[in-house]
């Protein structure tokens, strides 16, 4: 396949970026999207250019590192996958592909397609700890009965890999889906209920401090989430936030 790529290039966080055009030949439909980027970078290096910087790690949809905004959607046109799981067979010979970084004030660009997503780390850190004794006399987890429905919901919330596609797809750059998943994965379980009030207040407060936008319930985050985290969790977060405020 021959492809025409329009890639956002930006030297560092201070410089002004722009879209740069590239042409690339002999791309196999069996390649993953990141392999195509590898081929492009080898070509750029052969021509003594500066390769395109992009995040990647596990390349199997688990780590949440890859973060490209491809043809107007985070992780590209397919649903329930990350960029590393996207394959070139999804594109046609002669296609033009826009490749941009995830854009949000809270995700400043480090270089090219690499953005700083440590805002998510700070939100999780603000959630604090759970009171489980891990230093002797540890209770077997199975001795605490948990309703199947809640166990399933907590697990679903915990599948969030924190990639930031929710922020990237939201027209307001809201992090509500991420925060709702991280709050719910604990608050649905008995072990997480003890600190539930402080956790939701601190995490929402940190989310606001990081400069994410407000949720307007468009549902884009849920559609683009590679793990299919449901909007239910945002409604649950809203409920928990009100309840926590009433307690405080």
């Amino acid at each position, binding site marked *: 396949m021959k492809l025409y790529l*329009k890639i*956002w290039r930006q030297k560092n966080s201070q410089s002004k*970026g722009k*879209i740069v055009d590239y042409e690339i030949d002999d791309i196999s439909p069996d390649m993953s999207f990141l392999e195509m980027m590898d081929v492009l970078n080898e070509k750029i290096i052969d021509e003594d250019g500066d390769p395109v910087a992009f995040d990647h790690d596990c390349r199997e949809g688990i780590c949440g590192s890859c973060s490209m*905004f491809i*043809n*107007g*959607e985070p992780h590209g*046109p397919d649903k329930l996958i990350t960029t590393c799981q996207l394959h070139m067979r999804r594109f046609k010979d002669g296609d033009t592909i*826009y490749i*941009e970084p995830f*854009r*949000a*004030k*809270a995700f400043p660009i480090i270089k090219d397609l690499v953005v700083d997503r440590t805002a998510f780390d700070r939100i999780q850190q603000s959630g604090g700890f759970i009171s489980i004794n891990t230093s002797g006399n540890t209770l077997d987890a199975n001795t605490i009965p948990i309703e199947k429905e809640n166990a399933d919901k907590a697990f679903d919330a915990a599948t969030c890999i924190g990639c930031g596609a929710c922020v990237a*797809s939201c*027209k*307001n*750059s*809201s992090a*509500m889906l991420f925060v709702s998943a991280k709050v719910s994965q604990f608050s649905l379980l008995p072990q997480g209920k003890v600190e539930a009030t402080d956790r939701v207040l601190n995490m*929402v*407060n940190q*989310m*606001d401090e990081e*400069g*994410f*936008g*407000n*949720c*307007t*319930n*468009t*549902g*884009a985050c849920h*559609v*683009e989430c590679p793990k299919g985290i*449901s*909007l*239910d969790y*945002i*409604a*649950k*977060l*809203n*409920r*928990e*936030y*009100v309840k926590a*405020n*009433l307690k*405080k």
Partner: protein
Amino acid sequence: MKNIFKSSIGRKIAMALSGIFLIVFLTQHFLINITSVFSEDIFNMLSHFMGNNPLVQFVLQPVLIAGVLFHFVMGFILEWQNRKARPVTYAMYKGSKNSMFVSRNMIISGIVILSFLVLHFYDFWVPEMDYKYIQSLPEDPNRYYEELIHKFENPVRVGLYCLSFIFLALHLVHGLSSSTQSLGTNNKYATTIEKISFAFGIAIPLGFCFIALYHFFIHF
């Protein structure tokens, strides 16, 4: 509790509550207006009551105006904050792949509704205030129907009203279901709420359109 409305979730809850309050007002406004199609006397009686009852005039009316202003001001504040959250926009952004057009453009439908409200206040509220409090004319319980049909003689005004009602429908279709989501309604009701929201969002503006067109054509 005092800090709740300083947070993003708190502001959305405030937006949702004011929106639901305006929806309740809109419903009662429609129920009164639709009587003009069936009975001149009932419409005059209800309008006279709403225009002269002290509770409605001096308590509910100021609360309503405050609710409208709050909803618009908060809407603009949220929009400004949301735009600030993404200073550099995408070269290509396919919102249509993951969300409804109406949900992404509430600010546009809101601005059209605000413009309509200016016209609507100029058409009905300002003359009403002038009649009652500036000229202090003697109260006439039978004047309301005549005033209504007089306003809907002008095809340009009827056209503008109907256009505004289309934007009102676009706003309500997303607004009602979005409000319940902001208030944290359990999502097992989400599908039902979305259906009700869609039906309400279409039915009420369509009803207002019908009233305007009915009076225009019946008295043409």
